[in-house]
């Protein structure tokens, strides 16, 4: 479990995070939802340690991360896997080497054979068992995301962070990536935090959703509750999506909840 307590962050006097307090639950896909410029990515970067919050604390399973000793921070960081918005694959390495890289760096005690088995397992898990020899420039955006996920889970991460995993992908690939993240989260019981503004992701994988608006947490709940949330800013955000409007219509007509409003039905409307 990751606990964020009263995290504040400003840039040049402009306060981006205004005292955010929230919890990311273990074994669930926790979504940080919000429009552009609401501070989602800044909060994510504060959590993973790429930025230092001005105030507040972040705790990983009871261990304080912010302002703690470098060694403790390193210990926590080594349990973190991250999928970046642009995948951030090392472009001088092959797909195989990208996935092997954290193992080589973080677990020097692993033998070459053990590393090879682990890399092959991770690549197979994301459906890229035949792409190991390719360079990042030779694969599609969706494949890059899969490699990013494989690299993140290779060292048996406890916490998985995904910064807009669907950006730049077509809807079908987006759904596949969402499903993969969801499956991996439940399969390994890890704490996953996904930054998104994509309502499709909310419907697909939103086990726990935190809605940010102008640097503040306005709402949290799950995907079954979000359509009935009574927060005006959240309602405005979610119903700006045609797909969600359609899904809501199906929901109202069938009274079957969001489960009844599959993507196919929504599209048919």
């Amino acid at each position, binding site marked *: 479990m990751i606990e964020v307590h009263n995290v504040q962050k400003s840039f040049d006097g402009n306060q981006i995070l205004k005292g955010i307090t929230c919890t990311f639950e273990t074994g669930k896909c926790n979504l940080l939802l919000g429009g552009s410029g609401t501070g989602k990515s800044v909060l994510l970067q504060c959590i993973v340690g790429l930025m230092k919050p001005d105030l507040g604390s972040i705790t990983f399973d009871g261990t304080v991360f912010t302002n703690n000793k470098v060694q403790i921070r390193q210990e926590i*960081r080594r349990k973190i896997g*991250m999928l970046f918005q642009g995948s951030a*694959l090392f472009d001088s390495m092959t797909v195989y080497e990208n996935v092997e890289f954290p193992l080589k760096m973080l677990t020097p005690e692993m033998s070459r054979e053990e590393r090879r088995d682990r890399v092959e397992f991770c690549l197979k898990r994301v459906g890229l068992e035949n792409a190991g020899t390719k360079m990042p420039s030779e694969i599609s955006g969706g494949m890059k995301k899969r490699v990013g996920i494989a690299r993140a889970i290779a060292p048996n991460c406890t916490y998985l962070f995904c910064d807009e995993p669907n950006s730049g992908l077509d809807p079908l690939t987006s759904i596949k990536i969402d499903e993969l993240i969801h499956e991996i989260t439940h399969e390994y019981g890890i704490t996953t935090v996904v930054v998104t503004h994509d309502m499709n992701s909310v419907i697909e994988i939103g086990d726990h959703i935190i809605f940010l608006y102008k640097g503040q947490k306005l709402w949290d709940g799950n995907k079954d509750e979000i359509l009935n949330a009574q927060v005006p800013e959240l309602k405005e955000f979610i119903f700006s999506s045609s797909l969600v409007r359609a899904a809501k219509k199906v929901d109202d007509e069938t009274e079957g909840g969001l489960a009844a409003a599959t993507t196919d039905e929504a599209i048919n409307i």
Partner: protein
Amino acid sequence: MVKAFGEFLLFLQSMLTRKERLTVLWQRTLDECIVIGINSIFIVAIVSAFIGAVTCVQIAYNLTNPLIPKSTIGYMVREMTILELAPTITSIVLAGKVGSSIAGGLGTMRITEQVSALEVMGINSASYLVFPRILASMLMFPLLVILAMALSIIGGYLAGSLTGALSAQEYVEGIRTDFIPYNIVFALIKSVVFAFLVSAISSFKGFYTQGGALEVGNASTTAVNNSIIAILIADFVLAALLL
């Protein structure tokens, strides 16, 4: 200016704290030696050979006094090559080639979040990416300068012989006159200092690039400009201190 220098020193400090394992650093340094050293041999060879040739021809053109022996041309080519042309011009050429490559490479890694990916893994990105580049530069620049010295002197020999400015015997006689071995040591000290300046300044500029492709280009240009200025200042300071 003072703030930028302070940031530069902090950057160097960050590179030396939390270093990666020695085997990793050594492997990375060898990789960088290939990029910085081996891949620069061709351009260094071409530039130094022609500089030696042109120096020889131009000295011969200016040396019209019949009282001065023609072997002086060989002597002057050697002195100019060892003391100044080989270390300084080679380093300026490498500032353009290696400096822009380092700044561009690190800048691209920064804007495509590859540096952040290393940081999230708990790897000291400065130590992993920058330290081997600086070390490789400091190892390879002196070797390239030695190559440049040899090729420059050979270039002068060929140019002098082919144009008839002086005979091969006179050139060799000049080359062997009043040789001071310390000059070689001085040139190598200069090359190590220049290597550090070029690689550290370029890494600093690239590592802190923010924005997009345009900023990466700007970082490369600034890195080369600053490196060349630093080389020229260091050249003067070292000459004043060590000669």
